[in-house]
């Protein structure tokens, strides 16, 4: 029976059929009620559902907290915190995605970008610096507390090693891409009045690169991890830019120190990975366990005198490869094992002068 046939049926037959359905059980009734349920959908506020998020071209906006969002699809993940005066971004995506990032931001606020923080130097996280900063505003300007300054550009914060690499050497970029506010100590603090939250930019030495930072939004209880933590593969230990597997593990343990889970070790502090899905304490712990176990295996093989080729042939990552491994692309399992091996192999001292 369906609704269309029902409307064509004589009233008596209709009533009889429906009544029989009721009297025989729920089967018949569900034909109508199922339609009703699908037509009405959920009542707002009754049950949890992760909103699908606004979409701007290929950049997706997904809510993390009331005023914190993650933008997916612009290269590396971008965290956006909306505050009274503007928007703070952690990372800026690729240069090519800048206009899509700005369009995506317009779906959540009409306020300007007032702060950008780079978690590291790679262009999938810092490539949008210039284009997005130029469309932003600086709060404060020439005089502290002067409000929105005349300069039409958002400041870009990063560890000084990001600046060093962007301003010279193989990663050199145009000056417009460079950080405008650098720090060299362990932690840089941004105040709530100007940046919308009490924010700690915490340097993680020699991890994914030598300029990594994780950003802790203390009020929002969100941590942006940069590429110290990703859910899409093995950690990219960029040895050419000062990365080290021991630093990655230290960074993962730092994330576990910062995060406080809710009941049963999930939820609570939300962690935005450099790539992949939104995470929490337990997700980072699983990942930390995996990297630590692989590190220990490689170390044990090195201790037995095995060469890099022998270590790679022994497949120390085998049990995790179907989840995190790759045989092609920019970061393969072999490259990860090599980076781990070289991180754990003492660098030979420089050759002596002969005396």
């Amino acid at each position, binding site marked *: 029976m369906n609704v269309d046939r029902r409307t064509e049926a004589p009233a008596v037959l209709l009533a009889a059929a429906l009544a029989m359905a009721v009297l025989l059980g729920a089967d018949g009734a569900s034909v109508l009620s199922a339609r009703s349920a699908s037509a009405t959908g959920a009542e707002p506020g009754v049950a949890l559902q992760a909103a699908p998020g606004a979409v701007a071209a290929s950049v997706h906006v997904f809510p993390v907290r009331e005023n914190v969002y993650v933008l997916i699809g612009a290269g590396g993940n971008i965290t956006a915190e909306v505050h009274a005066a503007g928007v703070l971004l952690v990372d800026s995506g690729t240069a090519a995605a800048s206009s899509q990032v700005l369009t995506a931001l317009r779906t959540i606020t009409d306020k300007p970008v007032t702060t950008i923080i780079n978690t590291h130097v790679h262009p999938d996280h810092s490539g949008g610096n210039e284009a997005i900063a130029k469309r932003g505003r600086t709060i404060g300007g020439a005089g502290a507390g002067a409000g929105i300054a005349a300069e039409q550009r958002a400041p870009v914060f990063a560890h000084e090693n990001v600046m060093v690499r962007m301003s010279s050497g193989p990663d050199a970029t145009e000056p417009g891409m460079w950080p405008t506010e650098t720090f060299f100590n362990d932690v840089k603090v941004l105040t709530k009045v100007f940046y919308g939250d009490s924010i700690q930019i915490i340097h993680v030495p020699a991890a994914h690169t030598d300029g990594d930072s994780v950003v802790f939004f203390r009020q929002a209880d969100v941590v942006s991890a940069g590429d110290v933590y990703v859910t899409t593969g093995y950690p990219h230990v960029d040895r050419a830019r000062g990365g080290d597997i021991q630093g990655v593990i230290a960074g993962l*343990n730092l994330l576990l120190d910062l995060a406080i889970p809710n009941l*049963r070790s999930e939820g609570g502090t939300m962690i935005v990975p450099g790539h992949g899905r*939104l995470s929490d304490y337990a997700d980072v712990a699983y990942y930390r366990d995996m990297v630590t176990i692989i590190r220990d295996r490689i170390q044990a093989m090195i201790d037995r005198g095995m060469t890099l080729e022998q270590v790679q042939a022994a497949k120390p990552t085998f049990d995790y490869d179907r989840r995190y491994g790759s045989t092609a692309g920019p970061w393969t399992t072999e490259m990860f094992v090599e980076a781990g091996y070289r991180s754990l192999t003492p660098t030979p001292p420089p050759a002596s002068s002969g005396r």
Partner: protein
Amino acid sequence: MSGSGPLIVLLSFVAALLIPGVTSAQRVDVTGEYAQLFHEDQPERGPGPEVGDYLGLPINEHARQRALAWDASLLTLPEWQCRSHGADYIVRGPQSVRIWKEIAPVTRDLISWNAEWSRASETYREIFMDGRPHPPEWAPHTWRGFSTGRWEGNMLVITTTHLKESYVRRNGIPRSDWATLAEYVMRRGDVLTWVTIINDPVYLTEPMIRTTEYRLATNLNPPPFPCDAVIEIPRPKGAVPHVLPGTADPTVDFAAKYGLPVEAARGGAETMYPEYRERIRRWSASRSGDAAPRSADGGADERR
């Protein structure tokens, strides 16, 4: 017969339509508190499985290696102490379950069936019946996952995605966060049958199917599970207990304890089918009078 007869019949049927209690999209009411029936696998579900027992699990080599590297001391880490079981495991676990329904206050439509066990996830499972889509791939994963349901006849069919990593067996056999879960829930009188089918492209070669039964027990109340992590064993910061490859093989000990070929203890899809018992019988027969352990196909067991 008077002319009012058909009208009376009609009114009777219409009145029957007004009987309250048949809610939208509901064929069978599964509401209630149910106790687990431990007529199957009690030692595994209660005290816990033996280390090295992977029998009857359709696992691949990757899962096996990960299990061989598992150290029970992992559970003493603060990050692990308070974790809940995954949605797929808890159904087979040792806990009673409470099921209730969430009804939209205005439309009275069924929004979700909710289910909670002790030591389940951060909150109760919600099985949405209102047609909402599953979240995008970048949404968080939880141990309860994200579930939607529909009726097939009198059977509640549940599809769950967005699961956190968990385990197929509590001795190190992993289930990945890429797994999805299909469930079929049937109520026959006071007995509730709950079928779970795990599809895991990372660690399983075939779907892992379990059927678990509960009985209605209205005097039950799934207890709370408060938990605060503590330092159980002082360790260097970040240390993760595990067994290095090649240093131990608990499947050998398990096989020896129960007189099984080692390959049976190591699991795999073939070990979950009834035909496998015949292979073990042949193995046992070949072993009688032969001190050297042999593999299940009769050959010398090179792993001993």
